[in-house]
């Protein structure tokens, strides 16, 4: 089995388990303020790390390339409060243009 298949099956099983647990455990189990606080911060750190790693790394090296142009477009679109599809498509266009001009 390829790593991709392991990841697809493992992620799916655990994602459902978490959803189902929420519907099934007594409310007091997950309502501790510490759990709530950590749960708010987890997506912030993981998603930001995913932005960083997917923008400027290739394997174990830091590499600045055309993807940064795409990221700049995405940030600009976010500052103008444009909708999600515009952010993603704009980033792709910006990156593709930079790629063709060999940045």
């Amino acid at each position, binding site marked *: 089995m390829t790593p991709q298949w392991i990841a*697809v099956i493992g*992620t799916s099983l655990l994602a459902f388990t978490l*959803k189902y647990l*929420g519907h099934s455990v007594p409310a007091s189990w997950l309502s501790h*303020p*510490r759990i709530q606080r950590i749960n708010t*911060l987890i997506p912030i*750190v993981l998603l930001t790390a995913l932005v960083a790693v997917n923008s400027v790394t290739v394997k174990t090296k830091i590499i600045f390339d055309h*993807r940064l142009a795409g990221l700049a477009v*995405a940030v600009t679109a976010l500052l103008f409060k444009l909708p999600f599809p515009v952010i993603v498509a704009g980033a792709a266009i910006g990156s593709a243009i930079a790629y063709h001009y060999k940045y």
Partner: protein
Amino acid sequence: MSVKRDSFSLSFAVGAYGTAFGAASVTAHFTVLQSCILSLLTFSGASQFAVIGVLGAGGSAISGIATATLLGSRNALYGLRMAPILKVRGLKRIVAAQVTIDESTAIATAQKDEADQVTGFWHTGFGVFVFWNIFTLLGALGAKAIGNPSAWGLDAAVPAAFIGLVWPRLTDRKSRLIAGAAVLLSLALVPIAPAGVPIITTALLAIIVGWRA
């Protein structure tokens, strides 16, 4: 019935961005079938992007699963919130659990009337599910058809999707500081840790900061 109309428009808007997921997933060397299975079974945008993002950057299956699962943990808290409103058991609870995501919970909890909360949850849950899966397939097939993903900028679509997901959460000084720390920590680890590890390690920041309030 404005709750049904709201549910539909939100479902379509969110579902359409399944195109970005499908394209990003194929760009990260997942097959079209694997991309579709992730949307059908995982059905949680941030977790899906995380698993393809980690493996696409060369990370192991374990670090991909761990990162995606940590991101999916908020769905457990949504379930906790929805359970007393929905009051479902058996098969219905299994279906309700699967469509417990950001959007279905958000629409439901925005309603005052209890019947509207239930309607909003199911309509948004099913609506996003249907559109998200249709558009995942379209995005995956599209990305497969166009060849070199860099030439079409698709390698930048992945970080753009992540920044779009995290941006609305950076509402105060504390969240921006911890986000900045996560960038520094992850990039500092990239040259020395196996791929995928730099991302999951930032969860420690959330635990340390969240522990002390």
